[in-house]
């Protein structure tokens, strides 16, 4: 009798979980085409008034353009206007020649409301970045900017490792790689929640000033700023910035480092902002956002730094390796996606494998 009940429950659960419809919707002139796709592990389960879609898919995409592809970003969505209904999957640090295929794995949970049409997953191309830094795509998720910054960081880091190899030899390269792996392991991290709009906290609130790390080559300099702090919560940062370059700056991204009561520092969030700042002009960056940390964390101090900037002409500025070697930044800023890839190659194939990979570029 009990076995029959268990079989009934399992059968009912299997009946409730269903395979959602899926659609790969690339433009006709897309530089990548879908060669094959495996959606066998994707399923949709009704929960309350919505479907929870566990999207697990492996796509095989072909470079159908005439250029080498450096990065791809796909928008994966079940319902664009529903919170939780939209996500993206990006693959930076690629080097795919024309005509070759490459895999792209999608693992995303999505939400869509219960409707007559049933659950549906739609994969769209948001952008493709080529080796000459030209871009193709709808760019609805700002894939151009993100992938361009990743590619510039990749070139910077590969050049740094190659220069180290050429000037100081394999041993120095190995020492630097091991040092980077150790920094990753030691990099402090804490859970952080991001809440948009007004958050409520009964603790007494106080204004805490930002300290700033000034990058010598940065086109934008933060001059002053503060945020409201209440216990383990920091909200509404506002930072005054000045464009000290001779070119207009249209977008800026800053890093927000938080220091807790034990003196530990960690990178809490990034603050992107469209600024459209003419040369020499100042502006105020504000965000109606709250960051909440674990209950044990008390925010004691904050540091801000410019992590990237986009000029009005579409070119970019990123910090040099020397600027990132600042003792305050070394311990908290995560390595670039390319450095993560190279470190994994070292772990898997050793120093020889890493040197071989660097020689490809």
């Amino acid at each position, binding site marked *: 009798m009990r076995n029959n009940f268990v079989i009934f429950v399992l059968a009912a659960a299997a009946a409730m979980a269903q395979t959602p419809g899926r659609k790969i919707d690339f433009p006709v002139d897309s530089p990548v085409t879908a060669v094959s796709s495996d959606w066998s592990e994707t399923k949709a389960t009704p929960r309350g008034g919505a479907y929870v879609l566990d999207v697990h898919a492996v796509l095989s995409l072909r470079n159908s353009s005439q250029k080498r592809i450096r990065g791809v970003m796909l928008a994966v969505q079940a319902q664009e206007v529903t919170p939780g209904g939209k996500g993206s999957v990006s*693959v930076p640090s690629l080097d795919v020649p024309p005509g070759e295929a490459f895999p792209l794995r999608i693992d995303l949970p999505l939400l869509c409301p219960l409707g007559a049409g049933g659950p549906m997953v739609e994969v769209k191309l948001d952008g493709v970045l080529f080796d000459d830094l030209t871009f193709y795509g709808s760019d609805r998720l700002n894939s151009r900017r993100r992938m361009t910054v990743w590619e510039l960081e990749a070139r910077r880091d590969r050049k740094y490792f190659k220069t180290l190899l050429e000037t100081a030899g394999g041993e120095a390269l190995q020492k630097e790689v091991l040092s980077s792996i150790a920094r990753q392991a030691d990099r402090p991290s804490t859970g952080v929640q*991001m809440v948009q709009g007004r958050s409520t906290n*009964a603790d007494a609130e106080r204004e805490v000033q930002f300290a700033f790390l000034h990058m010598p080559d940065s086109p934008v300099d933060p001059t002053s700023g503060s945020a409201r702090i209440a*216990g383990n919560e920091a909200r509404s940062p506002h930072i005054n910035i000045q464009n000290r370059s001779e070119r207009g700056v249209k977008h800026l991204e800053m890093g927000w480092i938080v220091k807790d009561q034990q003196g530990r520092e960690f990178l809490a*969030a990034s603050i*992107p902002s469209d600024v459209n700042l003419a040369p020499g002009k100042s502006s105020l960056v504000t965000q109606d956002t709250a960051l909440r940390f674990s209950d044990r964390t008390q925010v004691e101090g904050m540091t801000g730094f410019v992590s990237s900037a986009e000029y009005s002409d579409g070119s970019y500025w990123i910090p040099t390796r020397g600027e990132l070697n600042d003792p305050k930044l070394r311990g908290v800023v995560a390595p670039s996606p390319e450095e993560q890839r190279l470190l994994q190659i070292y772990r898997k194939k050793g120093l020889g494998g890493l040197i071989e990979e660097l020689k490809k570029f």
Partner: protein
Amino acid sequence: MNGHVRETDLALYASGDVSLWQRGAIHLHVRQCERCREVVSEFRADARALRDASGLPEGVDWVSLSAEMTANIRVGLEAGECVAPRKLRKAISASIPDRWRPVALASAVAAMLTMMLAGAWWLNVPAQDTQALNRAMHSIWQGRSAMSDERGAVIEASSEGIELRKNGGSLGVSQDAARLMTVSVSTQGSASAHYVDQDTGQVTITSVYAQ
């Protein structure tokens, strides 16, 4: 009562035929009221005199006399029920003034609806909401900040990965076959997780958006 206990009640009190509650109330009154105390004394004296009387008059059939008296008493009681004014059960509403009755009725309906909604909410509330409520109550109890969980979307990044929460529901991102390297949060309402494939080193960046 007009300041004094009725004679019938005093008679029953004297013979010990009142309820416990009535007995206590009459006792308190009789202790302070000389007139009623005298009436009770007279009743008790009459009762003693009756008990001391020797036997019944000759020729009286006590059995038939007792049956006739009982029958008369019953007839009297039933007749009294018929002619007495109708006795209504005293309802709670009887104590509420007429002008307040609509308000009282509306309050009762509102209370019933509240109870129904509270019951429905309790039966259907998502577990995360219950936990959040428990956390808030726990914080209040400990005298710490009672942070309320916002009803908007909350994006969380931790060493476990990234998660989007809204209205008690949550969506977490994980990639079992890959190594989670870093997570990051953007104040514009997104979070990203960097995964590195352990075999190829290929980096995949998964992002969720609050809107």
